[in-house]
């Protein structure tokens, strides 16, 4: 199992006939992702490259049973699109849209509390389990299947790091772009817990940036609950205070949220911090070597077992979720014994 999306993900595209939605729906399908439906109000009943288009998410869910929705609608319509997907009880909603007002996301965050839907984004590239399923706008060709999990607040910087990992023969289990806005549905802590629980992920790359305190929270969680090796990188070491660096969430305010603070916090948690992106592959390789894993190959037995495991719906994992390194170690020993 990879994290959140895989071969059995059935994707709904909200805004499938729009400029961005149509382009990326095609790219996703070319990658082999199962796009089962689209929604565009006013275009229900038509079809997009063989994919049925519906008037509403409710209708699309009733007819095609998607378990992931990806949203490519303009910022003014995004809040409503998220509400529509949540009300249709789609377990995973990925919002790519950039430029959503913070107030809209405050309301979305309040609405999501206590509901079962997990939101990824907004203002994010989406997520990909290489070789299996691509949900979002990242270029597929830079990825390769493997056992490194990656989570990032950025888009192209993520591609840069993924590309460097791929060239270093370090494949990825799942790469998640959680988005660059001040309020996002899924944070570093949530994804760390998911990767920790995933038996196809051996090590984790975390790419943070200035602003907020999600990286500090991540460091705290790693100290207490994450047994797998984590390597971090923080962008924005040269950013001046008070200036928004492109992303709505990337701002150092009142002296808080600096790259230096975040790097120091990770170092205190025993997490190697890459000074530049090109140091990341070596740090990951080192961490894997220390644990006797190569990173690239999926253990055949594990893959067969994973295929047998029935896919559970993505769960909202509490940031306090407890990892079970001892149980994991036992499972690993068992696997070895069987080989």
């Amino acid at each position, binding site marked *: 199992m990879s994290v959140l999306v895989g071969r059995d993900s059935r994707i709904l595209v909200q805004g499938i006939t729009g400029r961005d939605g149509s382009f990326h729906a095609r790219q996703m399908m070319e990658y082999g992702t199962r796009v089962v439906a689209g929604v565009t109000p006013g275009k229900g009943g038509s079809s997009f490259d063989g994919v049925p288009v519906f008037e509403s998410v409710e209708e699309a869910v009733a007819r095609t049973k998607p378990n992931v929705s990806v949203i490519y609608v303009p910022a003014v319509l995004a809040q409503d699109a998220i509400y529509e997907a949540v009300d249709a009880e789609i377990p995973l909603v990925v919002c790519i849209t950039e430029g959503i*007002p913070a107030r809209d996301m405050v309301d979305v965050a309040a609405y999501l509390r206590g509901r079962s839907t997990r939101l990824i984004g907004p203002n994010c590239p989406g997520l990909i389990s290489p070789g299996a399923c691509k949900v979002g706008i990242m*270029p597929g060709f830079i990825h390769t299947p493997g056992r490194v999990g990656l989570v990032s607040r*950025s888009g192209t*910087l*993520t591609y840069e790091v993924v590309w460097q990992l791929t060239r270093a023969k370090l494949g990825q289990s799942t790469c998640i772009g959680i988005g660059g806005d*001040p309020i996002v549905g899924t944070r570093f802590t949530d994804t760390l817990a998911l990767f920790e629980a995933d038996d196809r992920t051996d090590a984790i790359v975390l790419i943070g940036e200035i602003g907020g305190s999600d990286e500090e929270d991540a460091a705290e969680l790693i100290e207490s609950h994450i047994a797998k090796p984590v390597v971090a990188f923080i962008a924005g*070491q040269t*950013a001046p205070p008070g200036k928004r*660096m492109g992303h709505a969430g990337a701002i150092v305010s009142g002296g808080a949220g600096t790259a230096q603070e975040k790097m120091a916090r990770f170092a205190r948690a025993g997490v190697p911090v890459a000074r530049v992106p090109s140091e990341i592959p070596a740090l990951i390789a080192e961490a894997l070597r220390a644990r006797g894993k190569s990173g690239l190959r999926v253990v055949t037995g594990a893959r067969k077992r994973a295929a047998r495991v029935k896919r559970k719906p993505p769960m909202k994992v509490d940031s306090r979720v407890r990892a079970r390194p001892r149980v994991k170690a036992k499972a690993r020993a068992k696997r070895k014994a069987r080989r």
Partner: protein
Amino acid sequence: MNLHEYQGKELFRSVGLPVPPGEVASSAEEALEIAGRLGYPAVAKAQVLIGGRGKAGGVKVVKRPEDLAREAGKILGMDIRGHTVRRILITPAAEIEREYYAGVVLDRKAETPVLMVSPAGGIDIEEVARATPEKILRVHLDGRGLPAYRARAAARFLDSRFEIQRALAPVLIRLARLYRELDCSLAEINPLAVTPDKKVWALDAKVVIDDNALDRHPDLAGLRDPGAEDPGEVEAREKGLSYVRLDGTIGCVVNGAGLAMATMDLIQHHGGKPANFLDIGGSSNPDKVTAAMSILTRDARVRAVLFNIFGGITRCDDVARGLLAALDRIGTKIPIVIRLTGTNEREARDLLGARGMTALSDMDEAVRAVIARAAEAA
């Protein structure tokens, strides 16, 4: 979008927050005319979009017209940390008994706005948070806004006198409402003053509007003061680019905000100094590349320019076309180092090669190269 104090006070007034009378002047004559009507002693306050005006000498209390004429002349045109003062706010000087702080800001962790109040007003709230955190009360605002009972509790935290509490509570409620209704990222009154006649006044206003929400507040979008911002940043915004001017000598053109930040960091890591943050965004519009080049080449400090493009959705050949078009239009002698990787990389290399230009494919290598070129050009 940051608003000037006088603009923030207008908004405050429109929602019934207690703001003393005041008008804005752009010449000493205007200032004298306004003060003549509003009365002396008066305060002249520089209107710039940066803090620390008082320390820089941009706020003066004057007792007589001749003092005002002299001080207004000094403040107008004054440079406050890179911001030229073009306007001053003239307002009657208030006798202050107590100074409090009230502000609403987004608490990212709690995912809600939070009202912060402090009896230690008149100084930076960050300073209070560092030195005396117990003097700040935080009230998170949920879908109900700020219920009256919680406003009363916050008022009690500020002042023990019932009649003052009764004046403070509605101020806090209106401030919370303004924050939400106008899509603010920050709405701050500092100081929130109590005068000896037991009245409460917002003596300053700091309002920041969420840029992403300006579309639904066309009236607020008109408050933007391009004259108070860096001209390059204004032009960049008009062209759909995200640009921030820095102090260094190496210009950068990058696609994506995270990669743009990482590029700046890498320049510094290898011993150079970035001249800017510039994100041309995810699109491949050649016009954006041209606009980016014209902003950078007009900046006299820029000695060399680095293009760092990771082609995903952005196609490398489109960026190359934009760059070549820009060079045709603005013809610059500034050395350019190009790094291209990803979608349509080969096409881009062919386009550049036909003009005798080469592109690198490794980010570290490109950064080292641009630093070397900048040093040669110095």
